[in-house]
């Protein structure tokens, strides 16, 4: 994960959604969204297509009006404020650069709309500065169609940030780039965000992108917020099954609470074995779902010694995939169904004969798993 240097996001709120709902006819695109965007943070909306993340962004930009609820930017209610009067700018998915203007004219477009008018020399200076910021100094007089995809993306970025928006909105800006260029752009985008200190709000369906870039991520599904938190919180403490499934990979099992102690709970799994998992306080259900990450589980031969307190689940290897630094095992347990286990290459070297068909023990350490909250 990228180290965060310089402008740390504070607790100051730059924008806020208050019970914001958007309906398109019978379709509920955004369902009572309530959250705050902190000044200077990098916030991502993450979710599959149709989850409402783009609708949320478009409401913030002013392209869609909320059906109910409010949106505040810097404490001001934005309900009736049209897009062209909002202190936010957007980088569009397909960039939406004006094809009849040069690169410099595109970047200066927002400044030319200012009233009272901005002096020509001042516009030119700001455009020049923005071009330098995205490393396109020599390209000001180029036509848009003469630019490559990555360059167009940087023009779109410069066209937005030159206006010094309070929030920069990014609508899947990396979706059209190939993998290598995407990684490069992600790094550049982060550097830019840290040096400018502008609040970035990114919409993406790429969880790796969200995990590696964001200060906080807002996971969305079916028009609702499933969970909002730092990448680490989402990965280690997913609030419910949807989040556990969407962020990273997880084995999700159902069981019954046997006992609780502190932050832990003992859960009886089908087949009669118990596991000890982390459990949020205040949950009074008996039947629960638990999640465990594939890398939190271990593998051992049937003859190996098992440490005290660890749970052993016998299973048969159904597939073994070499991933470079890790080996992924797919196993089938008679009681629990399919299980995934991710073993580091180092640990794998110590073991032998774990081919398809081998009968192994899946080792589950206490606290490796997490009890999931109810989905609302």
């Amino acid at each position, binding site marked *: 994960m990228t180290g965060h240097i310089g402008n740390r996001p504070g607790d100051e709120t730059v924008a806020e959604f208050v019970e914001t709902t958007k309906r398109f006819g019978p379709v509920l695109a955004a369902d009572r969204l309530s959250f705050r965007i902190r000044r200077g943070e990098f916030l991502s909306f993450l979710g599959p297509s149709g989850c409402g993340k783009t609708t949320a962004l478009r409401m913030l930009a002013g392209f869609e009006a909320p059906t109910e609820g409010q949106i505040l930017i810097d404490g001001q209610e934005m309900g009736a404020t049209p897009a062209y009067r909002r202190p936010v700018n957007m980088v569009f998915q*397909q960039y939406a650069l004006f*094809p009849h203007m040069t690169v410099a004219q595109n970047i200066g477009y927002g400044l030319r709309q200012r009233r009272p008018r901005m002096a020509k020399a001042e516009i030119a200076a700001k455009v020049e500065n923005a071009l330098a910021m995205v490393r396109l100094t020599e390209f000001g007089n180029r036509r848009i*169609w003469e630019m490559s995809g990555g360059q167009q993306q940087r023009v779109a970025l410069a066209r937005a940030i030159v206006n010094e928006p309070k929030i920069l909105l990014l609508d899947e800006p990396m979706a059209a780039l190939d993998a290598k260029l995407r990684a490069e752009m992600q790094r550049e985008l982060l550097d830019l965000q840290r040096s400018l200190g502008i609040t970035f709000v990114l919409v993406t369906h790429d969880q790796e992108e969200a995990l590696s870039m964001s200060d906080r991520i807002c996971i969305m599904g079916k028009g609702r917020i499933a969970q909002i938190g730092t990448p680490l919180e989402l990965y280690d403490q997913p609030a419910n099954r949807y989040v556990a499934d969407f962020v990273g990979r997880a084995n999700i099992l159902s069981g019954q609470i046997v006992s609780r102690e502190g932050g832990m709970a003992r859960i009886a799994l089908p087949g009669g074995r118990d596991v000890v998992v982390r459990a949020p306080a205040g949950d009074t259900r008996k039947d629960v779902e638990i999640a465990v990450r594939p890398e939190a589980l271990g593998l051992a031969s049937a003859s190996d010694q098992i440490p005290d307190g660890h749970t052993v689940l016998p299973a048969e290897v159904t597939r073994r995939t070499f991933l470079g630094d890790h080996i992924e095992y797919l196993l089938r347990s008679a009681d629990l169904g399919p299980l995934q286990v991710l073993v580091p290459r180092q640990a794998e070297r110590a073991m032998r004969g774990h081919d398809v068909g081998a009968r192994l023990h899946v080792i589950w350490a206490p606290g490796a798993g997490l009890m999931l909250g109810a989905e609302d």
Partner: protein
Amino acid sequence: MRLYATAVYLFLYLPIGIIALFSLSAGRSATQLQGISIKWYGRALNNPFVMEALWTSVKVAFVSAVLASVVGTMAALALTGMKGRLRAGFDLMVHVAVMIPGIVIGIATLIALVSVFDIVNPWLEAASGYRLSMGFGSLVAAHGLFTMSLVVLIVRGRMEALDRALIEASNDLGAGSLATFRQVTLPLIAPAILAGFLLSFTFSFDDFIIAFFVAGSETTLPIYVFSSIRRGVTPEINAIGTMVMVASLGLLIVAQLMLRRGDARRQ
């Protein structure tokens, strides 16, 4: 197959070719080639009746094309923002207007205008001593009405191909709807509007049927040619026909190029 295609093209273009060829005749016959000369072109261009008819045609074509471009573009913009049944209805009417035979438009416009004049003229005469009659105005109205639907179709096609995100980007960057239209929409659909203008101009300039009904005392070039033929075809008529054809083809080619250029820009 190739023979068949050749026959079709010969059938299509041979008569036109013959007119162009015979316009170069040095003799008096319009149907026999008697030496090569461009004297009939000079004769045509020096004929004051031809020049007056040409001037009338150009004026009618220009004014009706301007009218059609402005009104047609406005209609296309309005239709783009429209949805559902209302839009389907307007679409149908625009398409039908393009397909109605000229003779129907001619008769219909004539009857409509005459009826309107009959009602309006007594009042108008009493008030100002002036009467409405068929002539320049009715020609412009009839041509403009028909060619407007051409402009609607062309501009609408371009509007539909226009990326909605460009309009949103302009809004997002601080431009209201009027500023966005002026700086983004208009420059991007300008080639289509110009192509529509040129097509309208060509249509009006070439039209005989509609003009024949509504021209009143005005004589457009096609009407002049038609009335000259009744006095006998001379190579002068061939020369006029050839010039009109070349001018029209030229305008159509320019219109096509405008549309292509607009397409290339969008890529």
